[in-house]
């Protein structure tokens, strides 16, 4: 991968570097690269990796067939990369993960292939997650600390493992090597969430995003900044980010912000259109992935749509997928209880779930909202000591924890 700075860097290296950095320049550079080298299969496939989500099945497939044909004529690594990209863009995450195991065995430390490593977590299988984490550790050891894509990847992995200090150090090392490393910036946001960095984190994110307003993570990192604003009690800033940065399609992030504001007894930002949420739930993606469905449930909770939540809980309970019937269904029912003013019933459901909540998907930062909901419900039933015990680690390890303090404050009125 190209070195720091961007000068004397080939178009190929620049395109791959910007893609790995999750930069706003990635797609234009990839298009330029494909334009200059139309028979280069890896270039075409990487463009599909970056843009395939907006293409029809037919167009995506046609482009990848061409890319694979050209890659086979080039070399074995290219063919393997395109094959992996085909699987990844078809959201066949388990197959992608299996393929990556063999790819890295033959091409250790391949930074381009590292772009698909999310497949291990996207499988929704704890064994695959663990295997993916171990794979990252091995590839990092092979590539060395000078490889910013691998240090950034390991920073992300450590953050998700709850090893915030290590994640922060690795992210810092990565950003020192390559300041525009987007994954490292994201990993730092995760680590700083765990540490309650507050304004220090929002300043970093705003400064980093100012350098690339087209960055792929622009909205998402603003959402992280909104969470930091919640942590230090700057609710106006959290609302501003939700209203000014997040759009109609960002139902999950807007709802996750608003539900937190409501749990803490604060005014929410602009709401979602309830009919829009209902349409998403009945559409093709509504029940496709458990964490997304949970996000839509949060949107219903923000709107106090108790009846919709109860219907969704029944639907989830009847789903053949265990994560839906065993985890999502009780969580959604608990949200329904909270919105209906029945915190005791919510406490019972969420307490029984315990560690199973990890099966609802997403990442630590995102899942934390279930713990928040339980804490609020406990306080509302008069069980302050249990709520305090639940949030003890957060309150004692996070420098800024105004949000947690408000969750534990009996005076705060219950959400809706």
């Amino acid at each position: 991968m190209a070195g720091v700075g961007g000068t004397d860097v080939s178009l190929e290296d620049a395109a791959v570097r910007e893609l790995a950095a999750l930069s706003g320049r990635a797609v234009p550079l990839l298009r330029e690269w494909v334009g200059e080298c139309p028979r280069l299969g890896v270039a075409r496939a990487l463009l599909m990796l970056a843009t395939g989500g907006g293409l029809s099945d037919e167009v995506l497939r046609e482009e990848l067939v061409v890319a694979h044909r050209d890659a086979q004529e080039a070399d074995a690594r290219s063919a393997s990369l395109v094959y992996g990209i085909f699987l990844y863009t078809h959201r066949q995450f388990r197959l992608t993960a299996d393929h990556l195991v063999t790819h890295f065995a033959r091409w250790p430390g391949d930074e381009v292939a590292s772009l698909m490593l999310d497949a291990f977590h996207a499988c929704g299988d704890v064994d695959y997650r663990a295997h993916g984490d171990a794979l990252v550790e091995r590839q990092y050891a092979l590539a060395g600390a000078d490889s910013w894509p691998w240090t950034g990847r390991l920073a992300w992995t450590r953050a998700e493992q709850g090893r915030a200090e290590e994640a922060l150090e690795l992210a810092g090392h990565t950003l020192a090597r390559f300041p525009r490393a987007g994954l490292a910036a994201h990993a730092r946001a995760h680590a700083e969430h765990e540490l309650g960095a507050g304004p220090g984190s929002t300043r970093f994110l705003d400064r980093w995003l100012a350098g690339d307003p087209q960055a792929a993570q622009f909205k998402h990192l603003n959402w992280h900044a909104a969470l930091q604003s919640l942590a230090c009690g700057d609710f106006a800033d959290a609302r501003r980010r939700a209203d000014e940065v997040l759009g109609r399609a960002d139902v999950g992030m807007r709802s996750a912000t608003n539900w937190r504001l409501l749990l803490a007894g604060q005014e929410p930002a602009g709401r979602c259109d309830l009919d829009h949420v209902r349409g998403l739930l009945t559409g093709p993606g509504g029940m496709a992935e458990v964490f997304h469905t949970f996000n839509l449930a949060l949107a219903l909770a923000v709107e106090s749509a108790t009846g919709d939540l109860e219907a969704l809980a029944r639907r989830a309970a009847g789903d053949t997928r265990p994560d839906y019937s065993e985890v999502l269904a009780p969580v959604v029912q608990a949200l329904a209880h909270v919105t209906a003013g029945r915190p005791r019933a919510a406490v019972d459901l969420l307490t029984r779930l315990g560690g199973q909540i990890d099966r609802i998907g997403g990442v630590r930062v995102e899942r934390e909202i279930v713990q928040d909901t339980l804490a609020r419900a406990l306080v509302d039933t008069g069980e302050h000591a249990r709520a305090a015990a639940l949030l003890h680690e957060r309150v004692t390890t996070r420098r800024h924890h105004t949000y947690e303090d408000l969750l534990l404050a009996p005076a705060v009125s219950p959400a809706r």
Partner: protein
Amino acid sequence: MLTGEERQAAGSSARTVGRRMAVLGTAVGAAVVPAGAAQANIVGVGNAVFGNSCTNHGAAQATGTTVSDSGTASGNHLGLPLDLPRNHCGSSGIVCTAVFMSSV
């Protein structure tokens, strides 16, 4: 189309294979997966289709395999598994991932 029970069975099978893969993968060396181990990693294509978190649409048949007999990465000699469906994903917008998810 498969029934719900068949999907469950296939998903269970895939999880079993996945656990085996994880154990094997941990046991092999850092740089090179021995051919035997790599062959053992072969996941029945199609099982995995039911094991991931997204919903399928269309038939779930695969013509490809992820690992060749020699244990080398696939895609070098084989065609793409064009019968694999593209799975639906959720519709709540951007979620936390470590990858470029632009739809530009």
